[in-house]
């Protein structure tokens, strides 16, 4: 009895004092290994009388369990201490910078074109395109702008040399997206609802004009379409685009050869800290009007030129500058910067790849 008790207390003391995992392992082998003292004691049980075993057995079993538990506990404590020490050793300065990779951006013109496509899709307009190198029939003649019309001179057209003419038609850079109207009416049967965004060109360059810019054209041809529908469409579009309900339009009679009646559209703005913010009536205090759209009812001659019967089909068309819409919505003030490719500007005014305009999320970003 005393032997076992003293053996136990001795082993437990040794285990508790073991400083390393190796020492613990040595003690385990010495106690519980094949040649271990505890193992040896266990082996003596077989030679004992039942009475002896009755008394000795539990004591020996108790010794084995106590030693096993003490070893496991000591081993766990030492492992934990070792891990703690290693982790303490692995400390990093987490304030050091992490490279998040290059940041790209989507150009505001592309973003606004996507916004417009989203808004007009909801109104049932599909997107049409046409060539930028056009002939003068599509760009002018079919739009009721004959050769001697003063409006041709107003357009500051870029021309290609006479020898590039096709079927006797002079080639030029389209001065507006309106030729897409013609191409659409020639190719599709009404009813038609399209928008046509794209690059257009005028021989003009100053602080507010660049020789290349972006327009978006809208065209609706159907039965019974009136100027009232045009008014609603433009109001609805501008409210959706600027995401404001206080958009006020001012329609002014104007002149475009391809529409009759023709209407120019101003939108009211309010001066806020020196910035023009779209919204409110231009007649209000601190208010003013900005011309944003040209529009009108498609001229009978244009409808006829496209092979449609103007007594059956009528509709409206409108056009506006995409760059200008972007400037008004997002506050850029220099058109030339749009085409400079300055990374600093692109990052500041550009959009994240995931700023995809949606109706549920809002078209603006």
């Amino acid at each position: 009895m005393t032997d076992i008790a003293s053996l136990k207390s001795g082993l437990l003391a040794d285990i508790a004092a073991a400083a390393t995992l190796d020492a613990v392992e040595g003690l385990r082998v010495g106690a519980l290994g094949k040649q271990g003292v505890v193992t040896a004691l266990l082996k003596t049980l077989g030679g004992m009388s039942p009475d002896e075993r009755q008394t000795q057995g539990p004591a020996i079993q108790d010794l084995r369990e106590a030693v096993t538990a003490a070893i496991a506990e000591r081993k766990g404590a030492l492992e934990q201490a070792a891990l703690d020490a290693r982790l303490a050793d692995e400390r990093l300065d987490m304030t050091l910078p992490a490279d998040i990779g290059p940041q790209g951006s989507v150009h505001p013109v592309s973003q606004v074109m996507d916004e417009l496509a989203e808004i007009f899709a909801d109104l049932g307009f599909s997107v049409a395109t046409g060539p930028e190198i056009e002939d003068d029939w599509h760009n002018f003649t079919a739009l009721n702008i004959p050769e001697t019309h003063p409006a041709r001179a107003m357009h500051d057209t870029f021309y290609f040399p006479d020898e590039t003419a096709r079927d006797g038609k002079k080639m030029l850079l389209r001065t507006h997206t309106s030729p897409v109207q013609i191409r659409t009416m020639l190719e599709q049967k009404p009813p038609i609802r399209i928008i046509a965004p794209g690059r257009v060109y005028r021989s003009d360059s100053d602080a507010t004009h660049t020789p290349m810019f972006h327009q978006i054209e809208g065209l609706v041809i159907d039965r019974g379409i009136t100027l009232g529908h045009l008014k609603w469409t433009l109001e609805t579009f501008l409210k959706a685009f600027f995401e404001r309900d206080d958009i006020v339009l001012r329609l002014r009679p104007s002149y475009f050869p391809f529409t009759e009646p023709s209407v120019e559209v101003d939108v009211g703005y309010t001066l806020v800290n020196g910035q023009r913010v779209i919204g409110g009536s231009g007649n209000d205090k601190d208010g003013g009007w900005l011309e944003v759209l040209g529009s009108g009812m498609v001229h009978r001659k244009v409808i006829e030129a496209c092979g449609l019967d103007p007594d059956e089909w009528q509709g409206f068309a409108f056009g506006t500058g995409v760059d200008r819409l972007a400037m008004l919505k997002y506050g850029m003030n220099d058109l030339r910067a749009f085409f400079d490719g300055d990374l600093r500007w692109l990052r500041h005014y550009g959009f994240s790849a995931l700023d995809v305009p949606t109706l549920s999320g809002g078209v603006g970003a």
Partner: protein
Amino acid sequence: MKFTLSWLKEHLETDASLDTVLDTLTRIGLEVEGVDNPAEKLGAFRIAKVLTAAPHPQADKLQVLSVDAGANFNNGGPLQVVCGAPNARAGLVGVFGMPGATVPSNGMVLRVAAIRGVESNGMMCSFRELELGEDHDGIIELAADAPVGQIYADWAGLDDPVIDVSITPNRQDCMGVRGIARDLAAAGLGTLKPLAQVYRMESLTPIAGDGPAPDVRTDDPEGCPAFYAQNVSGVTNGAAPKWMADKLKAIGQKPISVLVDITNFVSIDLGRPLHVYDRATLTGPLVARLAKDGEQVLALNGKTYTLDDSMTVIADDAAVHDIGGIMGGEHSGVSETTTDVLIECAYFTPEAIARTGQKLALTSDARQRFERGVDPAFLDDALAIATKLVIDHCGGSPSAITRAGQPPVAPRSVSYDPAYALALAGVDVPKTTQKAILESLGFPVTITGGGTEMRDGMPFDTPEGWSVGVPSWRRDIDGPADIVEEVVRIHGLDNVPSTPLPRAPGVAKPTATQAQLVERKVRRTAAARGLSEAINWSFISEKEAAAVGGGDWTLANPISEDMKVMRPSLLPGLLSATRRNADRGAASVRLFEVGRRYFADGERATTGIVMAGEKTARDWRSGKAQAFAAHDVKAEVLTLLAAAGAPVGNLQAFGEASGAYHPGQSGTLRLGPKTILAEYGVLHPATAKQFGLSGTVVAAELFLDAIPGKRKSGFMRAPYAPPALQAVKRDFAFLVPETLEADALVRAIRGADKKAIVDARLFDVFSGPGVDAGMTSLAVEVTLQPGEKSFTDEELGAISAAVVKAAEKLGGTLRG
């Protein structure tokens, strides 16, 4: 088109305020571009009299004046003013700027100050200082009886707002003040005064004199269908009367001489250009005819124009005197010595004027009016007015009138259904209102039918028909839509009700085309990869175009040499943008553009990429900054092609990129041997140099139009269940000739057992010690996918053998 409020009121009897006039102008389509009242800047300038003038004690060119500026100053006592004007003298009545006043011409605020030691209490002003003219030779001299102390602008009638309106090309009638007044009267702003009353005439009848009528004729009835003329003999050509000079000055026109000013005044007042010839300079009859090819004329602007035989001119036996309807000749113009004049009032065909003006690149007030089409029925009246003005202000006696040719005055009318206003404009304007609007604009309305008549003993409702006469001054009107526009613009566009477009039932349908979807995906993927989207000019210089193979389209009239050729590649624009960024100190440039390339056979959707400078900046983890390399741009190309829906797994890598690239570090990706989807690589050093770039620049173009469209077969995907058994990986290393392209080996390995081998990935390339010269070691990881059962050793052996065999066909040997 500029005019003053008082000028407008010469034609329009109205009580309307300035604001009402301005609002109405814009509302009816005569957009107000600006309004300026010169008196607003001149409130602090009063009429003053110089009492005494004495030499300045310290300066030869200055005088010390004592000035009476009225009771408001110095209790009516004299003020001491130092003045440098040579005409300053006792007794002169001029304009005095009091201390505190701002001089309009230079923004200087006047104050009491010592000038060379003598106190000065304000300034006597010149016309130029007040922005009332160019005269700066001396101070303003007014009539001796001008009321001292009164605000000068009030006395001089300068309190008259100048209104600037933009006239659209269809409204030639509003290129004269009278036409604007007519529109305003129709819009309810007053009544239009009779023209005879405006010109203080009994009636508008020709002023026929006794002398022989001028010898004029038209030999070009197409270009100049009518040439009316009248002589006035014995005139004196001095300064224009004050009222006329004031009006012209107010709108920024410089008075020249009364004869010239009369033509300018009538042109602006009535939209009717005239021309006055000095008869002493003419030889023989004056004829409207086509010019001869190469004929020249020195025009009034001092420039010589060479004409061709499509242009109408006015010429005598000796020379051309007028580019008909556009600009007069220097030689036959009137001068202060002119005594006998011929007044021309002609009608020129608008199309001919437009063509000639465009060819000569010559603009003038006359061209602006004639090419829009002046009133062809307003020749006799205009001549009467002109002759009256000449006689009134220059004296002389008129001759009989010559009326050569016939102006195109055939009456025109439009048959119109008043219901069309509602059908086209969506606004219901009562018939009576429509009729009143049209008649006030000068469109007579004749209504037929609309009643009940007996036919065969039965009552029958006859349909109402409107015939709307078109006034001679409204050349632009030619159909019922034009009539609707007239009605609606006067009735007010504000009254057009906003009407919702009919909406298709249900949720809006997708509308974007396949090409648009591809562009959007490429754009947003590129932005997500860290590239910034630029938009560059579609036109580049000839030199830049040559660097990328030359362009098919060169502008005939470029805005500059830098913007001349339609780009055949997106690279020049991107490379120039890269250089600008580098010049601004950008260490790393990643740019892309989505746009078109322009070729003889069409415009092709393209994405361009340029990356230059640092791929990664120096960093505490990665060490030194890294430059871009060829395969960095290949990674972008493959990612974007995949985003665009290209079958990236089936693409073949070829060489043969364009000459803009490094010949050994560039390539193309093709679908089959002919269809090139992309080209990419390191830029050729010569190309980089041409665009001012140093260091390694990598670039690519993706030819979006060559990517085959996805066949839309519904949303259902092919059925798929992940295999139950795990894939097995085996590595192979082959020694291959160094000329063998890695892609060929990888493809061959993939093809060795198309069923079992699902992937082969090259992971190591090595040449050097242990590898024979001329050879390369390529290591490939092959992924094998078992089907129902695991591979047996025999099967694995057979696959390995097939892989080795495939490599051997390409000259490869398995490394031991």
